[in-house]
């Protein structure tokens, strides 16, 4: 039943997107592992890790698009959920280091030995065991989003007020995680990972598998998000986005819909974070920085708000541009480009690249979600 729901959801464009992902998940690892490095078709391992990172960003953008594009909740704190998921995964991998740390302590991670701690803090218990860690990856950010959303939406904090307090949330978390006595490695965060599920994180095979997993996670995330926005509840979400008061007067419990979709989105962001950390090999408090969370929003805006696929494409495009810019002579100009993107996209491309393209292309099967209402009238 659920499978049928999931598989009924995508339109033709969705299927193309899913097919691309499936193709990438199979072909890229194959080209990396099976083709010899001398061949022009060989994909270097660094490239696999880089694109794996992009796919995680794409899933993060997708989760943000679900709340912003379809429910009008502009979260400037999605980085918090992403980083929390990453930290949960990082904690699991820290425990896998075991005695191979610099200090070779029998059970404490390096940074705790360094800080002269004697005991493992209670919240680190259980992270040796992957299923528990996996549960925490979903549970902690999900619970935070639920509690936060429950309070915020019930008291009808909307619009920019909500944006500002989500920003304050991630800012507060950042300040907290920077502290050494919080027990998450302070400034340096968690790093020096060795194994994940018994496989060496550095090896090409693990990298390739993580890439494939990221692609699969993105595909699943897309299916779930698409199923949600296509469902009856999804129509209510769009109604909330376009006319919240009216939806409430029609008898819908707006806050419940918002809380649910916000929590779901936070869990998706957390999964993205959990897949991101083993591929980049570090998680530290700067992931909580409010500036990062705003940057995620621009990925969605560039790709196309309220299109899901567009958000994913936007994330990959912007990050690809970022990598290209920041590794060359043009590095000092990247912030100009990013800043200009923010300005130009919001003024000239309110529907993003994907929106622009879909206007040109004929609709394959005409049941796409309606684009956000653009109300370019002055405030009253």
């Amino acid at each position: 039943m659920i499978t049928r729901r999931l598989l009924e959801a995508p339109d033709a464009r969705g299927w193309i997107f899913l097919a691309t992902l499936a193709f990438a998940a199979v072909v890229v690892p194959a080209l990396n592992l099976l083709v010899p490095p001398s061949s022009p078709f060989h994909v270097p391992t660094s490239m696999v890790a880089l694109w794996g990172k992009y796919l995680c960003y794409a899933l993060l953008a997708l989760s943000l698009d679900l709340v912003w594009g379809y429910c009008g909740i502009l979260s400037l704190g999605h980085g918090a959920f992403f980083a929390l998921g990453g930290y949960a995964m990082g904690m699991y991998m820290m425990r896998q280091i075991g005695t191979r740390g610099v200090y070779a302590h029998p059970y404490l991670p390096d940074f705790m030995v360094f800080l002269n701690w004697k005991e493992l803090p209670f919240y680190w218990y259980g992270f040796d065991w992957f299923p528990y860690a996996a549960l925490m990856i979903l549970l902690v950010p999900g619970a935070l989003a639920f509690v936060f959303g429950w309070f915020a939406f019930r008291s009808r904090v909307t619009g920019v007020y909500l944006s500002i307090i989500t920003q304050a949330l991630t800012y507060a978390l950042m300040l907290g995680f920077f502290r050494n006595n919080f027990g998450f490695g302070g400034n340096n965060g968690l790093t020096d990972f060795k194994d994940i599920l018994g496989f060496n994180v550095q090896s090409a095979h693990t990298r390739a598998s993580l890439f494939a997993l990221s692609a699969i996670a993105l595909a699943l995330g897309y299916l779930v998000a698409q199923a949600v926005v296509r469902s009856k509840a999804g129509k209510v979400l769009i109604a909330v986005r376009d006319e919240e008061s009216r939806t409430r007067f029609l008898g819908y419990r707006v806050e419940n819909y918002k809380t649910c979709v916000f929590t779901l989105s936070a869990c998706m962001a957390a999964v993205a974070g959990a897949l991101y950390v083993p591929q980049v090999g570090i998680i530290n408090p700067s992931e909580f920085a409010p500036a990062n969370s705003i940057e995620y929003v621009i990925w969605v805006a560039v790709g196309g708000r309220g299109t899901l696929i567009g958000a994913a494409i936007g994330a990959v495009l912007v990050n690809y541009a970022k990598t290209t810019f920041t590794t060359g002579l043009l590095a000092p100009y990247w912030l100009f480009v990013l800043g200009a993107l923010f300005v130009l996209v919001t003024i000239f491309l309110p529907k993003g690249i994907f929106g622009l393209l879909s206007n040109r292309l004929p609709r394959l099967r005409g049941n796409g979600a309606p684009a956000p209402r653009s109300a370019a009238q002055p405030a009253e």
Partner: protein
Amino acid sequence: MRDRFARFVALLLTLGLLLAGALAANAQGNTQAYESALAKFAGDSFNDTDEGIAGVAASGNPLAERVITALQDGRLLFNPDDKKIYIRLGEGALLEAAAGKPVAGAAPAGLKQVRINNRLRRSIEAALGGLTLLAPDPRKRLEAAQAVFKSRDANQLATLDTALAKESDPRVKRALAAARAAVILGIADAKEADKLEAVGILRDRADLDSRAVLSALPANQPASVQRAVADALTAIDDWLAVWNVAQNFWYGISLGSVLLLAAIGLAITFGVMGVINMAHGEMVMLGAYTTFVVQELIRAKAPWLFDYSLAIAIPLAFLVAALVGIAIERGVIQFLYGRPLETLLATWGISLILQQAVRTTFGPTNREVGAPHFMSGAFQLGGLTITWNRMWIIVFAGLILMALLAVLRFTTLGLQMRAVTQNRRMASSMAINTGKIDALTFALGSGIAGLAGVALSQIDNVSPNLGQGYIIDSFLVVVFGGVGNLWGTLVGALSLGVANKFLEPYAGAVLGKIALLVLVILFIQKRPRGLFALRGRAVDA
């Protein structure tokens, strides 16, 4: 062992000094004490020299300081034959220490230097400290009294008594009395009545140093003294707690004024116009950099103007920030009215561009902005230490708030701004050019941010990231205070500042900040429109 010995010597000396003090009644005795003390230097033994130092210092003879300074510099000589003491003045010239007359003719042969060791060097320093207790300059006397208070040197008691008897300046007199009290408490077998009096003096002084003296008192005191000390400690703690609250309050007001400066421009653009300007912090930064440029120009071209650099920077910072503000409003924001979330993103982009532009122009490192003369230093108000720069920033913030309120209330521009805020279409029908008013309002808000930058350049690092540090705080202030209400911004800034400073001692700076963020988040749940919310139809616009 050495300690007990030292105390014994101290006791002897004290007794001797008391004797000397009694003798000092007439000038004859004074000279005698001086000469007999001076004679000790000829003994060529460290213990004799030590007694000599104390004796000379206590004699009150005008030559005493020269003798001891000479001893310190190794210029004090003695003749082993006739036991006379000389001070070497320079190229072979000698001064006979007892009479204070230069030696005529050739120097006596076989003069030896009075030797000193580390113990004596300490005695010398203490004695010199004691001598300045009698210095003609009251500021020097005050410093000396404070030094004695810290060293609690029993040798100084006689000098202290002399100084106290002569002192006329009430401040110096208080300091001397406190120093004397501290010294008496340090003497193991001082009289009980003296000790009780000393405890009383320290209790009235009631600062951290007095508390340290009292709590460091050895336990073997008479019962009455112990009781008095315990009482005094409680009294001092209560008093210090009161001042501590006052000091925290002051810090809170000071932080609040900084928040107010940063937020007040935002209160205009966000509160009055409903525009989320994420580049607001960068306007503050531009103001700070304008100050930097003005100061650099003054340093290079007209250094005598340096004390007026801030006065010159203020209008310029306003202009620069206001012009950039107009450019942003006309170039970007006017296309996005009614789409607050898009405005937020676009202005964030502008803030990135401005930051990077400043980073490319001025470099990524902190720039030094100097403080003019009147902004440096501090003064003491009761138990409060108040620095001048914080003081002026509070005044500046207050003035800006007043000026802004006046502009909104009494000028045509203010009237039109309020009209456009309340009902844009109606204002437009009344022949108000709403586009122009929007641009001017935005310029006003940005210009005020530039002014804030001038003030913040005095207390914060002037770097491209300056504005980033304030943007979240300023938004919280505006949201907390209530949108569209300048008084709300004032109350919001001050209460957040004070709350922050009161949370800090209990939770630490970072946890205090986190606690405050959480509190504000919870508060917004309770009152989503802030402390002073607009009522009526405007609410749901």
